[in-house]
């Protein structure tokens, strides 16, 4: 398979983990406010996107979006600055950790569950009208797949043959409600048939399997064959948001998953087993990305807070408001 090597993907996964840990630091210190959602444990899904998407492809993500942004190539430094509510952030402190936007890379987010797919549909429509071979990826959780927007968007994409790729991160939980109690079918991928879409379910802890399936989904949509639905199974390691007591999931099960099903050590073990890199090489690569994120965080912390006078900017294209 083309695309990044397994070692490169693994290094990205480590960078993603360190990025989320850097975010965690800002919560107890009250540098970050509101409900911070991390994707710790779900890195293999995001890292599987790398190499397939281009800057002209759109990616619309959810409340749990940091990893998708990194995978799309959004630079860590201004992203972290936005999450840390600094003036140097992607959106000058107006957006926040749930609302990251990077126009150049066609990356956007929403904090409203299920609202990603309709927006992705628009990107897909534009690509079709303009005769571009770009695709639009709409990310949703398993919970978000039960919203009306999911059905409406996929139906339209199917009817109009739009290049929409729906990536479902099925981490088994929508806050406290388990997938099995809220969804009518055993998998979400099987819904694809209802929309005339390509559909597949993949082990979201296996970064190579995700990469391969995602490349297939995108190729399907890029070739003008209409929408694709990729369901990646995974598990959320932390509470729904920082501060969530997470009492709805049995502690033993959580511990077991974190110990036995962490995509980072699983991927590292695979690399070593194959002899694709040595322990020393991996340690060095890990140290480098860890230092990189640490440097970003230190720099962000020295950045200025937004000027309160800017609070009323940007309501409209021109002129001050209110």
């Amino acid at each position, binding site marked *: 398979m083309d695309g990044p090597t397994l070692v490169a993907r693994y290094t990205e996964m480590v960078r993603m983990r360190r990025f989320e840990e850097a975010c965690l630091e800002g919560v107890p210190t009250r540098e970050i406010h509101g409900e911070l959602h991390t994707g710790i444990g779900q890195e293999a899904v995001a890292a599987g996107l790398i190499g397939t998407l281009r800057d002209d492809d759109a990616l619309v993500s959810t409340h749990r979006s940091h990893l998708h942004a990194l995978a799309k190539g959004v630079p860590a430094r201004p992203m972290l600055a936005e999450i840390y*509510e600094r003036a140097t952030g992607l959106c000058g402190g107006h957006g926040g950790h*749930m609302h990251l936007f990077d126009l150049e890379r066609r990356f956007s987010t929403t904090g409203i569950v299920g609202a990603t797919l309709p927006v992705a549909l628009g990107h897909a429509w534009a690509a079709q009208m303009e005769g571009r071979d770009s695709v639009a990826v709409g990310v949703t959780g398993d*919970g978000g797949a039960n919203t*009306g927007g999911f059905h409406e968007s996929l139906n339209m994409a199917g009817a109009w043959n739009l290049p929409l790729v729906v990536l479902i991160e099925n981490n088994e939980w929508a806050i406290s409600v388990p997938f099995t109690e809220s969804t009518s079918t055993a998998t979400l991928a099987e819904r694809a048939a209802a929309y005339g879409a390509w559909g597949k379910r993949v082990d979201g802890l296996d970064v190579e399997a995700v990469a391969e399936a995602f490349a297939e989904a995108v190729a399907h949509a890029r070739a003008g064959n209409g929408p694709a639905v990729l369901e990646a199974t995974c598990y959320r390691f932390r509470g729904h948001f920082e501060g969530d007591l997470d009492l709805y999931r049995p502690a033993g099960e959580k511990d077991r998953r974190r110990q036995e099903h962490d995509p980072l050590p699983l991927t590292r073990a695979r690399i070593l087993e194959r002899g694709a890199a040595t322990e020393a090489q991996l340690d060095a690569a890990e140290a480098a990305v860890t230092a990189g994120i640490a440097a970003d965080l230190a720099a962000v912390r020295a950045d200025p807070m937004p000027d309160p006078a800017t609070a009323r900017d940007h309501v409209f294209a021109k002129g001050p408001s209110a």
Partner: protein
Amino acid sequence: MTTTTGVPARAGTDVRNINVSQCVAESLRLEMERDDRVVVFGEDVGLQGGVFGSTRGLQKAFGRDRVRDTPISEMAFTGAAVGLAMEGYRPVVEIMFVDFIGVCLEQVYNAAAKIRYMTGGRVGMPMVIKTAGGCIGSAAQHSQCLWGTFAHLPGLQVVAPSSPYDSKGLMAAAVRSDDPVVFIEHKGLLLQKAGTFTHGAQVPKESYTVPLGQASVVRPGSDLTLVTISATVGESLHAAEELAGEGVDVEVIDLRSVVPLDLDTVCASVARTGRLLVVDEDYLGFGLSGEVVTGVIERLGTRALSQVARHGTPDVPVPAALSLEQAVVPRRASIAQAVRDMGRAS
């Protein structure tokens, strides 16, 4: 059924050490015991008892038929509440945050709000849309109040309590109401302990209601009438204490509900003070503050008012950075300043 108005907390009295969300859960429990047609559903309301705990213990007490976790399908389950109400149930449907109501607004303002009218009064709609609003440093899509939005739509009663006492009593009244009630808790108050409130801190264990549409004078004063609702009631009380030290005696009125709007209580106060300030955490434009001011002028005439002012969240989305939020959302310091500015202008 007893009907009383909130008793302010007195130091040393037996304030129960519960928070606002527990007051709401207790109210729902009592109403469910009283009337088995009351059902509660929404995301995370069952097993978890709500993200703030305002439905905690209900599923255990009443079972999954009456208290049920839904998928994230607001359009379907809010619409289902309309159908259930037509079947004779009294559904309490939780939209976790008021900010998310956009995905099911059709069910709220065309179905729930208009059916009684469209049927010539033949079909009642006894449902409660229970939700949480307010600015809590959670950015544009998670920090809205939106009571003005609902108030604009005919057929919805709109309630936003400011204290533990009222949270319990108004919820009971909302459940018993034969009309659809949008009940907007404040995200910033739900986890606050009763003992920390300067008003309405004492919450009786037994069932009681606070009637919808009756404002309460939470602090009597003679110099200026400050009218507000929800979390800015507490903020205004703090501001009033500070201003008292500066020789300004502010009367603080908690509207408790936007619809019905108790202009009688407001006008009685303004007729004495002659000065009106409306403080609103919701967007300023086309909302509660404009409605109160216009309503007072229509009733009392312009000459009854020597001064009128509004202090609300300007018409901008709530910014993410707390440093920016503080620049736009009314809080005790800015409220006190708004009163001082009126003094300066007089």
